[in-house]
Every structure is written in structure tokens, then in C-alpha cells.
């Protein structure tokens, strides 16, 4: 596939702590990527950074290359919450990182966690207020624990418990000019992450590096999770796992993924891709649900803010 050198629209460097590499190593990496890939005009390149290991040197290298957005794993600004999460950085470091990124002119993205023990609406408000001051892109996640782990007993047991936080984020970020463009993501001024959107639109994604996920024309695969294993394999054989969905499954998945975004399901193109029968069965399921869960406009069906809040229950009907 690399042989054909398709033009890259978006590139996301993350899924770990890329700031582990020092600025000098980053220089090498940028060179390799520039050499190995060809980028389309206006390509969106994002990088994930940890406030703890981010250095000014990183920002300088990134600025000199194609990096548009820096995504920071903030989680919280509350000292007690960070302590509970066992995060290395303190709130000060997070603020410094945000400030430096903004000064250098990057688009800044941050994520916040809710449902941390001891967190209340006041703390959550402060978190959202602080992050939305710096960032044009905010993701909110609920802290979850695998059942059976010690954490599971400690944190809030059901998803409905997170309701006030999620509801507040929807309300508050809207006030601040953010648009909820995806179930967990809010963006201001059109700063939505196009890379993320390509997942939700079943776009082709090339996986580079261990444990990365890829999707090419209906084939979903995952690279070997172990670095040595990954290195010992070459090219396409680096995938450790793959699945090809049946047309029915692909249609259902496409509907679920499309509903993650504010653009929802565009019925005409959906019908063109998946045929009348599959389209109708999905349409019927959605039509049987309360109307206020959806926004219907211009041939599209998308979640309303209320719909986003119960997305899981609706997807469950589609899966």
C-alpha cells in the first residue's frame, strides 16, 4: 500500500506518550514521516502530549514541521482528583503546557474526566472553564472501571450517575461557543478533529506502529502490540488480528458510527452504499423511538443533545 503512496489527509501521532521521545528524536521521526508519506494540501496532523514530559523543544520541532494540533491528556485540574488518579503532573504543569501550546499558535485539544470520587459540579465547572479558556477542542470521558477490579467498587457504579456532569458539559460548552460534533467531543471555530471523523465515517486508516488500529476498504486490523514482534514483521504482515465485516454488519456499524457525530446518518448516501433493505431496517428502528432524541434535517438523522446522552441504549438496538 505504501508503494502507491496515497495522499494522507490526516495523521495522528498518539496512543501512548509520544513526548517520551526527546526533541532530537522527534526531529528524526518528522524527517522519516515526511520522506515516507505524501501529504495532501491542508492535511491535518495532530500529536498527543503528556503535560509532564512536554518540553519547549518538542513544540519548536513540531512547529517547524506540519503539526497543527497538540492534544493534551489533562484529565483534571483538581489536585485531589489528580492525586486520586495517580497522575504525575500537577495542575500547574498542565496550565503551563496549555499556555505554551497556545503561544506557539497550535490548535489545542484537551480531555477531561468526570465521575472521579469527590468530584462535584463546582470542580467540574472549574475544569471545563479552565480548559475551554485555552483549548478549541474538548473531549469529556467518564471514568470507568472494569467490573471485578478493586476500582469498580470505589467509583460510581452506573453510567446514569454521570448524568449531571455530562449534561452540564453539553450546556456549558455550548455557552462558550463549542459545538458537540461527536458524542464525547466539543469543538469551537471548526476545530473538529478530522482524523477522528474518518473513523466514524469508515474512512481508510493506515496503522503504523505497534498496537495501532487500521481500516482499509472493509478490512479492520490491528498491529502486533509488542514492539519486538512488530519490528520482526514487515509491512502488511505486521497485523496481528483482523476482521472483515459482512455487508449487514458493516451497514449496522456505519449507522452506529455515523450517529456518533452531529451530522448523523445521511440517508441518500447510506442507501447508495448499503441498499434499500438495510437502510429501511435501520430507519424503522430509529423511527420507533421518541422524537426528541433526534434532530432530523436535510435528509439526515442525528442525535439531539438528549439523544447523545442515551446513545448507548440506542446503539444497542442497532448492533
Amino acid at each position, binding site marked *: 500500500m505504501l508503494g502507491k503512496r496515497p495522499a494522507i489527509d490526516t495523521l*495522528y501521532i498518539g496512543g501512548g506518550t509520544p513526548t517520551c521521545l526527546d526533541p532530537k528524536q522527534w526531529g528524526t521521526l518528522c524527517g522519516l514521516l515526511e520522506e515516507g508519506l505524501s501529504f495532501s494540501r491542508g492535511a491535518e496532523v495532530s500529536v498527543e502530549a503528556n503535560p509532564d514530559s512536554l518540553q519547549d523543544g518538542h513544540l519548536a520541532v513540531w512547529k517547524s514541521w506540519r503539526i497543527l494540533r497538540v492534544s493534551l491528556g489533562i484529565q483534571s485540574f483538581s489536585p485531589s482528583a489528580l492525586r486520586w488518579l495517580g497522575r504525575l503532573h500537577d495542575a500547574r504543569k498542565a496550565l503551563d503546557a496549555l499556555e505554551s501550546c497556545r503561544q506557539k499558535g497550535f490548535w489545542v485539544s484537551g480531555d477531561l474526566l468526570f465521575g472521579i470520587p469527590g468530584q462535584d459540579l463546582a470542580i467540574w465547572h472549574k475544569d471545563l472553564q479552565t480548559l475551554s479558556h485555552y483549548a478549541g477542542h474538548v473531549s*469529556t470521558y467518564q471514568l470507568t472501571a472494569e467490573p471485578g477490579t478493586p476500582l469498580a467498587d470505589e467509583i460510581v457504579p452506573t453510567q446514569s450517575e454521570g448524568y449531571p456532569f455530562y449534561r452540564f458539559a453539553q450546556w456549558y460548552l455550548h455557552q462558550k461557543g463549542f459545538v458537540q460534533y461527536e458524542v464525547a467531543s466539543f469543538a469551537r471555530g471548526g476545530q473538529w478533529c478530522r482524523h477522528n471523523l474518518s473513523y466514524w465515517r469508515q474512512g481508510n486508516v493506515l496503522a503504523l506502529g505497534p498496537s495501532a488500529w487500521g481500516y482499509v476498504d472493509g478490512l479492520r486490523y490491528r498491529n502486533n502490540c509488542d514492539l519486538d514482534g512488530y519490528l520482526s514483521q514487515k509491512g502488511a504482515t505486521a497485523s496481528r488480528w483482523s476482521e472483515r465485516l459482512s455487508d449487514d454488519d458493516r451497514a449496522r456499524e456505519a449507522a452506529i458510527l455515523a450517529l456518533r457525530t452531529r451530522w448523523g446518518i445521511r440517508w441518500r448516501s447510506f442507501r447508495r452504499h448499503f441498499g434499500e433493505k438495510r437502510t429501511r431496517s435501520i430507519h424503522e428502528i430509529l423511527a420507533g423511538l421518541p422524537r426528541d432524541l433526534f434532530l432530523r434535517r436535510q435528509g439526515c438523522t442525528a442525535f439531539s443533545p438528549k439523544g447523545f446522552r442515551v446513545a448507548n441504549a440506542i446503539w444497542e438496538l442497532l448492533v
Partner: protein
Amino acid sequence: MKREHIRNFCIIAHVDHGKSTLADRLLELTGTVDSRTMRAQYLDTLELERERGITIKSVPVRMNYKSPDGTDYILNLIDTPGHVDFSYEVSRSLAACEGALLVVDAAQGVEAQTVANAYMAAEQGLELVPVINKIDLPSAQPEEARRELEEIIGVDAHDAILASAKEGRGVPEILERIVRDIPTPKGHPEAPLQALIFDSIYDNYRGVICYVRIVNGRLKAGQSIRFMATGRECLAEEVGVFKPGMTTVQELEAGEVGYLAASIKTIHEAHVGDTVIEGGKTDSVALPGYKKVKPVVFCGFYPVVNEDYPQLRDALEKLQLNDSAIQFEPETSSALGFGFRCGFLGLLHMDIARERLTREFDVDLVATAPNVVYQIVRPSGEVFEAHRPSDFPDVGQIEEIREPYIRLTVFVPSEFVGKVMQLCQDKRGIFQAMDYITPERLRLSYVLPLAEFIVDFHDKLKSTTRGYASLDYEQVGFRAAELVKVDVLVNQEPIDAFSFICHKDAAFHMGQAVVRKLKELIPRQLFEVPIQAAIGKKVVVRQNVKPLRKDVLAKCYGGDITRKRKLLEKQKEGKKKMKQIGRVSIPQEAFLAYLNIGKDEED
């Protein structure tokens, strides 16, 4: 072995008076079970029996006993259940015996069920051997127990055996007394074959296995036999005895207890109570059978997933092979689809059947609230039986509703008598009699609607008397009552499986309790779900299940869509355990909610 050296007996005792422990000691002392394989409650082989510490199923066992005078005997013990729901099992086992050990707890004395079972044994002409058990207890009052045996039951107890099954005291004496006092089986080995089927179980490989008592003649492996009631003829493929565990023998002869397997596929071909005779014979006389037991408690069993209907029918058929008192017929519920209306002898019986279906036959089922059988009189004077609330016609079509009543006997220490009388009154009981058995203990007698009894009477009696009261009951026919049918509507739709019958004064209270309970149990859906209770068209209670507010697990690391989908699939799988009714998913517990309403009120 000569008939003179065979003894067939059972043990009659109230629950917890040490019947299973005594059986264990007899097995040990006769060397029937060696000490290595011995375990407590040896004869209770059902997992449920051991778990709950009760005997559900009669189990025969054959013991070889050498008397101190050197004579060898065969002792057939038929272990019987103690709970009142299973008294039909007791009555059947009695017919296979000539005598019974009447076991009384030295500390508790004679209890209600001891009396009922002893009367049954006496009626069948059995010789009773009184045993006063648990004399090792500090609170034991053997003389008191002896007096009660004589004064309440009316047996001669001057030579009642004083025993402690736990410590093994008195057990050798019991064995000697079985041999001395219990009569030799009558009947003649050279007479034509007559064998009574006193129980049956189902075995996956051998089909129905009949437990038989040979009354006359011989039953040989390989011979042709005939079941009198059905006229079916077949070969006796295997005959054997319980040693314990089935052991084949060449033949069984008059006086013996054993089993018979003949590739019988359904219980209808060989029912309990039937007489087995020689094949080809038609002039034999049938032995007195049993009164067919009539179920008094009904409920619906439905598969959770509609496709499992054949599997449920199969399981019910197999269960019936082991428990002929269960009745079932197909029924359809608009809410639950295809299922079965099942009849039971009591609530414990129903509960056990439900658990056995789930455990032994691996069927996921929903059980609807139990009800008793009703008689409905139409304005035309026509009377018909209603087995479920949906059998009730419109109010205009009902002249009178009658419900079954029982005569309840309670033995209770005098300090609790007030509480017990209060309980009986709350349950619409009508006082009959009260008499002192001893200065500290009395017998209360009430006539009471069975419907009030089945729900939680037993539990409430136990808790208000700290376990010191005991009860027994018998059915005394139907009486007119002011009953109403309460319908329950979920999301505006009446759910037939939730309808119930109750006294009109209790309708509002019960309706409220049911609606409140359902509100707790029905998870939030994507829309508001009203739950209502109505009598006829009139809604008497309403509550709403608020719509789901938040259910979103948004985290999805770049491209990890597969894992997300698997999570959704798993969630969906979990919901499948719920019953989908209209647009609403209702968990199985909801269908049993009524059972627990009474209990919850106390908490």
C-alpha cells in the same frame, strides 16, 4: 430370603425432628453404607434437598440386618418427605410398608405434622413404633414427649424407644423393634403377580423407572408384564433393589421392594398407583391405588426466549416423570407468548419445581404470580373452574366467586397464642377451636382461605413464634368470597401475567405494593413508562418509570471500534434475559414481584 425375614417400613416425623439423621445411623449400623462413603443426609440425593436440608423425594433403601439372635433380615426403609406440601409422597410410601417409626423430638414434642402423618399411617393399617429422639439435648423432656404421644396421637408409648440419632443411642434397639413389632409382609410368592407402583423416576438411558412393592407373586427380569390401568404390555428389562443405589437382581418376590425398568418413555404409560401384573393376563385384580392428588396452586411458566418453548415442554415432561403431582397444560399469554399453566400442591412444591427446571434442565424461565383455583358461578347458575386471572369473565358475567378454604391446625407455645391468632385473623381466618395440650402448649384451629395461606403464612408463623409453632392443614372445600381481579398495565397495555385476584378490601393496598415494586424493577427505558393498577376500567394506582437520562460510554480509542461493538453486543445479550413486552423490557424478577411483596412490607 423368606418373607418372614423381610420388613418394610418408613419413618414419620415432623421437619427437623431428626428423620434424615436417624436414617443415616440405620444405614451405618447395618453396614449398608460404609463409613468412607457415608455423608450426612445420605438419602437426600437431590442437590436441592441437601442445600435446603429437607427431603422432597421418597427414596427407598434396602438394608441387610443380622439380629443378635443370628437371624438375617432384609429391612426396606422408604424415606419420606416431611413438608406438608409433599404429604402425598408420604401417603404413597405408606402403602408400600407394614410399619412406621414414629419419631418425635424429645424437646419439641408432638407437632402438627406428626399427628397428620401418624393418622394417615394408622388409616392404612401400619404398625407404629414410637421413637423419642434427641434425648441428648439439655432441653429434652422425654416423659413429656411420651405423654404427648399417648394423649395427642393415641399410641401406646410406654415402651417408646429413647434415642439420640446424633449420638447413635437407641439405634440397635430400634432395629430390633422393627424386626419384632412390624408385621411380616402378607401375600404369597406363588400367587399371580401383583405389584404396586408407589413412585417413579426418570432416567435418561432406561426411561421411566418404577419403584414397586411386590404384593403377590414374583417379578422376573425378562418376563412380560402388563400395566393394568393403561393395558400396556412390555418386557421387564431390568429389576433390582436399592442397596442404596440401584442393583439388579434376577427376581423380586412377594413382600419385597425394588424397581422395574421396561423402556417406558412417558409417565402416562405407567402411572404411580397402578398395578403391574403378568403379561397376557386380564383377570387380575388391581390393588387399591392412590387418590389422584389435585393441585391447588397454579402459576404460569414461560420460557424467557420464545424459541425455547419446546425445550421447556420437554423439561416439564421429564420433571413430571419424577414428580407426578405436577400438572401442566399449554397456555398463551398476550404478554409472555407460549407457556404452560402448571399446577402444584403448594408454594414450596412450586418453588422447588421452578428451581429444578432451571438447575437440572437448564431452562431459563419466567414464573408468574401463583394463584389458587377458583370456582366461578355464572348468572345462569353454571359453575366453572378458573386456573388463572384471565379465566375470569367480565364482572357482569359473575354471580359468585368461590375460593378454596383449608382447616388449619397450629401447635403453639401459649406465650405466642395472641400473635398467632392475630396472624390468622389478618389472613381472613375464622376461629374454630383452641385447646390446651399441656399447660404450656395449645392447639389452635382455624378455617382460612388457601389463597391467604400460600403467600407467606408459613414464614410469618415461623417468624412470629420464633420457630416454635408448627402447622398442618387439610382442604375443606370452596366458599363464596368477595374477590376482585386487579389488572396491571405497563405503558398503557394490560399485562395478563401481572393480573391477580384478591379480596376487595386488599385490592388498593396490593395494587399499590405491586406497582411500587414494578417501578423499582423495571429499568428506565428511552421513554416514560406508566405503571397502573386497575379494577375493571378504573385505575386505582399509577406511577411512572422516568425515562433513561444518561447511558453513554463514549470512550473509544482511535480505531478501536471492534471492542466498542463487542461491548454493545454484550450489553444487548444481557438485555435478552429480559422479557420484551411491547416496547418495554421487563426483567424476570418482576414476574415474581408479588411473591415478595408481603415480605418487603415487614422490613
